[in-house]
């Protein structure tokens, strides 16, 4: 109890919603991972080392030729028409036939999550998320004060039968939406099967249910056959979220929402109050980058890198993690999800890991229902193969040491 305090003299001014935001020990501990001597599997950082400076230079020059005045002025709240058309082109590659007028540009897809929460959720409303789910989505939804119901994932993604049962047993006003990440789930690494996608769309139709489909990783498939996004069916029950963060760069903060006209209009109205418009300079960079075809070049360059890193991590896990551990084998995306023996607690283990100069994100952060204590998310996109091998080796040692400790306290019977 050493009061090393952050006292806050503004306490009495904060809104009730701000009290719903969570701070945590984990977040503070994670500030250590920015250090070069810690091998971090904690972040969700895509590899950006492959963006060739000459390409970027090309694109920047093209933006300046096109119009300095536009780039440095306010823009349309909906986003630039040219960019929206380019993004429709990207969606077409995944089988979605979108109308550019139904696309809202956002400052990363994270902003789309925030805006959606604010136009859809009143305090006490029900929403349904996957377990585990994207932690940034929980952070975006929570301040609106929803009651969150969790449907646990299996290796084929969201078990739609479980969702159906949850809806059958539902009490009170129906849920406002179901939030899903069908491709290379963050953090779970799993992909929703084609059958389940079809069934989920049927269910949405039958129950008049809105689905928020978040697809940051769909194009980052380095193995297996592509699966069609839910939005490809043209259903009026799907709002689709896309982003350039994982296929171009997270630093340009360009994401988008595509969906039914009325919802997109509401998003635009709210966005006006949030930030007027996303940066026109960045939008112009993005549209030129896409138009000149660099994005595909970058994407094709990323795939073999990610595949090789995923393989390095799978090999290292096999070699170093104790019996009773299991993990997912993602065919794309950035994350492997590890489940350790039941009795372990990855949050309690984190400081030990950081002291051994390796970091991960503990599982509970990804659940709205308090489960996941024995799970962890590992990112394989950022560290190279050698660092992955070394980092997983360190982590394996930490886990074995922790298991010994549980054993000596008689806590390993779980």
């Amino acid at each position, binding site marked *: *109890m050493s009061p090393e*305090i952050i006292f806050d003299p503004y306490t009495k001014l904060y809104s009730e919603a701000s009290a719903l935001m969570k701070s945590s020990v984990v977040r503070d501990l994670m500030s*250590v991972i920015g250090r070069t001597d810690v091998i971090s599997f904690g972040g969700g950082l895509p590899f950006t080392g492959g963006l060739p400076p000459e390409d970027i230079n090309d694109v920047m020059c093209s933006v300046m030729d096109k119009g300095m005045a536009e780039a440095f002025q306010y823009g349309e709240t909906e986003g630039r028409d040219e960019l929206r058309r380019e993004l429709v082109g990207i969606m077409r590659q995944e089988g979605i036939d979108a109308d550019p007028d139904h696309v809202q540009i956002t400052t990363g897809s994270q902003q789309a999550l925030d805006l959606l929460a604010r136009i859809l959720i009143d305090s006490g409303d029900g929403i349904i998320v996957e377990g585990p789910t994207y932690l940034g989505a929980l952070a975006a939804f929570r301040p609106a004060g929803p009651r969150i119901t969790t449907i646990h994932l299996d290796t084929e993604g969201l078990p739609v039968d479980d969702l159906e049962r949850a809806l059958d047993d539902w009490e009170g006003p129906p849920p406002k939406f179901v939030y899903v990440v069908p491709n290379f789930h963050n953090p779970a690494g799993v992909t929703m099967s084609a059958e389940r996608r079809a069934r989920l769309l049927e269910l949405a139709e039958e129950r008049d249910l809105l689905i928020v489909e978040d697809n940051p990783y769909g194009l980052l498939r380095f193995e297996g056959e592509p699966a069609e996004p839910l939005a490809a069916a043209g259903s009026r029950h799907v709002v689709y979220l896309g982003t350039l963060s994982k296929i171009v760069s997270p630093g340009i903060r360009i994401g988008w929402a595509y969906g039914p006209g009325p919802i997109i209009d509401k998003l635009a109205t709210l966005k006006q109050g949030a930030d007027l418009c996303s940066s026109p300079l960045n939008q112009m960079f993005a549209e030129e980058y896409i138009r000149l075809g660099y994005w595909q070049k970058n994407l094709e360059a990323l795939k073999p890198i990610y595949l090789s890193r995923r393989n390095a991590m799978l090999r290292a896990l096999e070699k170093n993690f104790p019996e009773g551990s299991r993990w997912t084998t993602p065919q794309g995306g950035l994350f492997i999800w590890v489940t350790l023996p039941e009795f372990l607690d990855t949050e309690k283990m984190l400081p030990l890991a950081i002291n051994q100069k390796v970091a991960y994100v503990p599982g509970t952060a990804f659940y709205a229902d308090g489960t996941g204590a024995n799970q962890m998310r590992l990112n394989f996109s950022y560290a190279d193969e050698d660092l992955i091998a070394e980092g997983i080796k360190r982590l394996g040692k930490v886990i074995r040491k922790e298991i010994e400790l549980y054993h000596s306290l008689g806590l390993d019977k779980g």
Partner: protein
Amino acid sequence: MKARIAVLMGGRSLERSISLKSGKRIARALVERDYEVIELDVDETLVPTLMSEKPDLVYIALHGKGGEDGTVQELLEILGIPYTGPGPLPSIIGFNKVLSKELFIAHGIPTPRYFTISSSTLEEMGASSLLPVAWAKLGSPLVVKPAAQGSALGVQIVRELDDLAGALIEALGYDERVLLEEHISGTEIAVSVIGGSEPEVLPAVEVVPESGFFDFDARYTPGKTEYFVPARLDEATAEKASRLALEAHRLLRCKDLSRVDMIVRDGQPLVLELNISPGMTETSLLPLAAEAAGMHFADLVERLVKLALSEAG
């Protein structure tokens, strides 16, 4: 010509983020007072950097392992660069709650009763059988804390014997040795002492966590903690607390600076621990206490700098 000061901050300790806040704020204050300032986020290049930069003084704004436990102080002794705050010995003792509590007890400074247990005794000597014994002797609830760790990281109040082993696991994540300490309910206060040959005791700051327990959540969640400065103590108790703080400060030979955390039960303060590198963020306790004594932040920082420079020479 004013001195060139290197402010050490950040580092790899688990309290890195707080240290960065403290350090940047200190650096700004020093610039404001016309010192030449070098900000250093401590990493493996620290020693070569200090050797080439040759600062007149090092301001230690590190918290936690490496910065508060004597490590960086020992290194600065070898380099012969003067630095703020206490030397290696008080740092080593202050950061280790077992050493400091034993010293307090030996010198009649009241501190809550406790036992220690380490991961090696658990693994090699079957010490888990001791848990019910310690529980019976200390009474419930009891406090589990890592022997060497700041910011209350890993500290927990345990109310049921069944939860004790789990709490040990968490605390052992921060240090291989853990304290089981008698829980005292009372008023939590922190008393800072600023050194020199005639050390000055600053007004006590009182900490009132809404949950009754000043853990990490209480610290970082808005609305969960209130503070009072000076602490709401009667004169005799406040006087006792000051005297104890000064005694602890002198006992550990803290020279320039210490912050002594205590808990007051029925008018009797008990010393929980002594910090040699207390937080210096906008809302930390030492700056609040200094403010209450009429010392602005930059005054406080400059005073610590002058103390260190005058001792050097």
